[in-house]
Every structure is written in C-alpha cells, then in structure tokens.
C-alpha cells in the first residue's frame, strides 16, 4: 500500500476516533458521573436479536439484570424484562465542546433498562460513556501538550538555526539539559513541586503545561536541522538579494520547509503525551475523581480483585491501541513522503 493511501487510511481512522470523542455526549447513552449503585461491576450488556423463545426481532433488545444466586456479586439476564434498543433517543442533557446543548443520544433503552456496552465500575457507572468522556480529557491534554511542545520547538529551532552564533549555542545547550533529564521522572518531579490539591481544570492546564514544556528539545533539534539547510538554499539567498528581511525569509521560504517535520513530530508526540497523562492519572497524580480521564478509568485495575474478576475494566486500555496505531501509521506515512520528496 503506497504511502498516500496509508496516510489517508490512518487519518480517516483517527478522524473517526476523534469524532467519537468530540461528540461523546451524543454517542454515550449516559452521563459520565451517573451512578447506578444497584449495579456495581456489571458485565457488558449483550445485545440480542433472538429472544428466549427463539423469535427474531428486527429491533435489537437487551435483557434486564438481576442478581445471580449462584455467583454472589454477579448478575444474570432476566428473561422477563426485555428492553428494546432505540436510536436517536432523548436522554440526559450535554454540551458539545461546552457550547452547543442537546438531549439527543445515538442509542438508548427505556428508563428501567440499562445498556452498558463496556460494563460498569464499582459505582455502577457506565464505562462506555466514561470512556468517551474520559477521552475528551486525555486526548485534549495530549493534543494541547503536543501543540505546545512543537510550537516551542519551532520557535527555538528556527531561531537557533537561522541566526546561529551564540543564540544557537545557548539554545542548544539548554535543550541538552532537557534531553539529559529522564523524561518521565522529570514530569513526576515537576508534578510533585505543584500543589497536590488544586481545582480540577487547573490541574488539567498545569498538566498540559508541564508535559508540553518538557518535550520541546527533540523537535527543536530536528527543526533546527531543517532550518540550517533551508537557509542555505539558493532561493533564500536570491530573496536576500532583493532586500528581504529576516522575518520575510523565515515565513515565506524557510518555515514552510519545516511543515513535514512538524507534522511528523506532532503525530509522534500526541500519543506519547496522551500516554503520559494516562500514566499520571493512573497513579493518582493527574486529574482526580470524579473527572474521568482514561487514566482514572484504568486506576481501578490496581486493585487485585478488580484485575482478577472484572475483565471488562481492561477495555479502555485496549481501545487505546487503535488510537496509537492511527497516529504511528500517520507518522510513518509522513516520514516516507518526506524522504521521497526532495524538497
């Protein structure tokens, strides 16, 4: 498969995933904080087309849950209670991107029924809904932090590469220090220096700032390399020849050469940073309850009995794989294209 097609496949996969997360309110049947204390650790709900009597229904349905006498704490399906699965139902209110309000959900069941696509956690909260909403936090953190890192990298790399001399020396020495520090440890250490209990959105922003400000060194070096070779190109010299200012040279001729590297770095950093946020939250150092990020969803797995008995709690981690795949495939395809085009 040639690199363009690979690129499109990866991008479409990513776009789909991100759309799911962006419109979490629409795709999720329940609000993320909605608890169902009667149904802690319920397994994923099976969707049926054929009922216990063997009759086929066009509209899929789910069974109600009742306690399983043979398995304390477990559940079994109640064949007497059948709830049809409808699409475009009216449910709990939500806001898309915090702006547009709506009540519309893609699917749902009647009020007494429950459809837990990924089961529930200890508080009876729907994991599927929490996964989608949690993605908003983790993914947004990764995207913003990567944007921050790469922007800093472009700034530093362009200045260092274009002007050279002492600016270059100073900036590159600075980047060496950042590269010399073990990334994860540094992240944790800076997190430690910050107050442990602050308002949630502040934690979120701080997290982004910290993750983003640690990772600029490598992009900066790569961009510096591109700028160094770009500024020697004859068309840049020619532009100097009609009196172009440094700013004009940078923006019109030099920086456009860096687009490829910038995009590739973004594609590589975003999954890393998402994982950083997930790790921090997993360890209780990131966003805290009840704000659900993927990390907090996975944190329950640190308890032995959860790990041993409730396999569906793993699903959020498994669903990270296609996300990473999409980004890495994008980065690969971009790198192939970069090598092929001798700009």
């Amino acid at each position: 498969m040639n690199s363009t097609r690979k690129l499109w496949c990866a991008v479409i996969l990513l776009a789909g995933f991100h759309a799911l997360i962006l419109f979490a309110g629409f795709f999720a049947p329940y609000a993320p904080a909605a608890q169902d204390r009667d149904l802690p650790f319920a397994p994923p709900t099976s969707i049926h087309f054929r009922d216990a009597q063997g009759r086929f229904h066009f509209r899929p349905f789910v069974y109600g849950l009742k306690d399983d006498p043979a398995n304390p704490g477990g559940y079994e399906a109640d064949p007497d209670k059948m709830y049809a699965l409808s699409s475009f139902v009216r449910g709990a209110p939500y806001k898309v991107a915090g702006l547009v309000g709506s009540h519309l959900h893609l699917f749902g069941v009647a009020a007494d029924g429950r459809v837990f696509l990924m089961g529930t956690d200890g508080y009876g909260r729907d994991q599927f809904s929490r996964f989608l909403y949690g993605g908003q936090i983790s993914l947004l953190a990764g995207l913003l932090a990567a944007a921050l890192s790469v922007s800093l990298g472009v700034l530093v790399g362009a200045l260092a590469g274009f002007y050279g001399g002492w600016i270059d020396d100073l900036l590159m020495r600075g980047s060496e220090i950042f590269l010399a520090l073990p990334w994860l440890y540094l992240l944790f250490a800076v997190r430690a220096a910050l107050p442990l209990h602050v308002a949630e959105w502040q934690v979120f922003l701080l997290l982004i700032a910290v993750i983003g400000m640690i990772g600029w060194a490598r992009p900066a070096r790569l961009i510096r390399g591109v700028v160094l070779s770009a500024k020697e190109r004859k068309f840049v010299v020619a532009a100097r020849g009609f009196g172009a200012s440094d700013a004009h040279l940078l923006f019109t001729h030099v920086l456009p050469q860096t687009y490829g590297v910038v995009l590739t770095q973004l594609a590589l950093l975003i999954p890393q940073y998402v994982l950083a946020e997930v790790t921090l939250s997993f360890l209780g150092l990131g966003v805290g309850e009840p704000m659900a990020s993927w990390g907090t969803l996975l944190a329950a797995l640190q308890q032995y009995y959860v790990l041993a008995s409730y396999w569906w709690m793993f699903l959020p981690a498994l669903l990270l794989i296609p996300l990473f795949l999409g980004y890495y495939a994008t980065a690969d395809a971009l790198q192939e294209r970069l090598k092929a085009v001798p700009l």
Partner: protein
Amino acid sequence: MTRYISRRLVHAILLLLAVSFFSFGLLQLAPGDFFDAMRLNPEISQRTVANIRSEYGLDGPLPIRYERWLSSMLKGDFGFSLASNGPVAPLLCVRVRNTLLLSGTATVLAWLLALPIGVWSAAKRGTWGDRISRVATSTILTIPDLLLFLGLLLLAVRTGWFPTGGMVSPGADDLDAWGRAKDVAVHLALPALGLAVVMLPVLVRHVRSAMMDVLESPFVRAGRGHGIPRGRLLFRYALPAASNPLISLLGFSIATMLSTSMLAEVVLSWPGLGPLLVESILSRDVYVVVAIVMLSSVFLVFGNLLADLLLFASDPRIRAE
C-alpha cells in the same frame, strides 16, 4: 586523546550542575517549608528541628542554601525523609539496588534477543521472516507500556504461573542463600520479561538498520565472494563493523537503567525507585523526590559519557585526529 576525554568530562559535569540548579529550584518551589510538617510531629523536639534547619542551611540566603545542599549531596547526604522518618540515602540505596537488578536483567535479556533478531532480519531482508519480525516490533510499539504491564499482571493473576508482585515471598528469610536467590528470580521473571519486551522493538530496529547498512558495503560482498560461511560473515565480520551506532545505543541503554523501569515497578509492585517516587510525591516527601531525580540524571549523563568514551575507544577512525 586525553583532550577528548577531559572535554567530555567537563561537559558532563557542567550538565549535571545545570541539572542540580534545576532540582534545587524544584525544591524551592514546593509550597511551605518542609519542616512545617516536621514541627507538627510531636516526637521531634523543636530544638532538633531548629538544628536540622540550620544544618541544611535553610535559614540562609539562596546561594548559601544551594551550596550547602549541593555539598551535602556530594557527601552522600541526600536529606531527610519525612515519610520514613530517617535519612534519605539508605532508603535510596536499597531501592536503587532493586531497580538496577530489574532493569539490568531486562536490558541484558533485551539485547540478547535483539542482536540475533536484528541481524537475522537484516540478512533475510524482504522475506517472510523479516516481515513478521517487523510487524511484531511495530505491534509492540503500538501497545502502550501501561497496557502491557497490566496485561502481564492479569496473566499472573489468572494463571498463577508467576507471583503477582513484590520481590520476595513472605517467609523468605527462612530460606538459605540459594533458596532466597531462587525466590527473587521467580519474582523477577515477569517484570524483567515485560520490560525486555518493551525495550525490544527500538533495539531490533536499530540493529537491523545498522546491519543493513553494513551488508551493502563492499567488504561484505567481497567476503561472500570469497565463500566465507554466512553465519561467520554475519557475526564475526559484519556485526563488528556495524558496532558504532550500536555502542551508542548500548550506552543509552545503560544510561536509562534507572528510569526505564519505573512504570513496570509500579504496576508489578517491584520495590524499586519507581514506587518510592510515586509514594513520595503523594506524601509530599520533597527531598526524596529531588534525590531520585538527581540520581537518575547523574546516571543518564554518565551513561551517555560512557557511551561516548566506549565509542572513542573502539573506533580507530575517531581516535586518529
């Protein structure tokens, strides 16, 4: 030659100084005086607190405080841990040993696997075997480390083949030395395996690409023309020629030995630096946090220095200046 070494050494020391500034800065950032909490502890008298404060130079101006902190670090005194009510240094010693045991084993394992796989993959480029190994390494790269370790934990829990955490079983003190060693080894198996798998893809990729470059070169082709058997050609002739980037990589492996195992330790409950770091952050035990960061940075910087020196010693082209 000594000029090269001394230049790199000076460079490393300057780098570490910069790191120490940074760590010290972190220390200052932590809100509240560390000893506020200590003062609240009824077991410690006010006098002791005051003494320790002046000993750490906390009552002086900034440069003095930095100098005293730095000099005490250099002497091996890493501060005081509130959480465990004792000096930090001995606390770290044990943990460092455990971490190195884990990451050392994993690194050796990873390299032992990566070399043959990478070499073979490069030699059989384009064949099914090569493609499989490339898909496998890409797959492992795509799986987040966290997931991998959780998965291994699940495996341990479900199958009971491995212990699910810790370094020793309860009651291990009663065993003899050999029994204790076996006990540790059994506990070591899962985390080391997991960590090795995580390290593997990058190593294999580098070995493969380094080997591919060498296999294209004239002297290898000449060797083939002379009829040197394939295995010997690969390992006795080609691999040494590919060693430059690999030695750097080895240096990098060594340099990161204190930091790579962090997540594995936390998830699989291996008592190394990782869990200590997390606990210290949660309990606001600042000196421990700073000490860990400094220590792992020192390791990193000196590991890289070692890599440069190894490269210098092994490659006659660099030496001939």
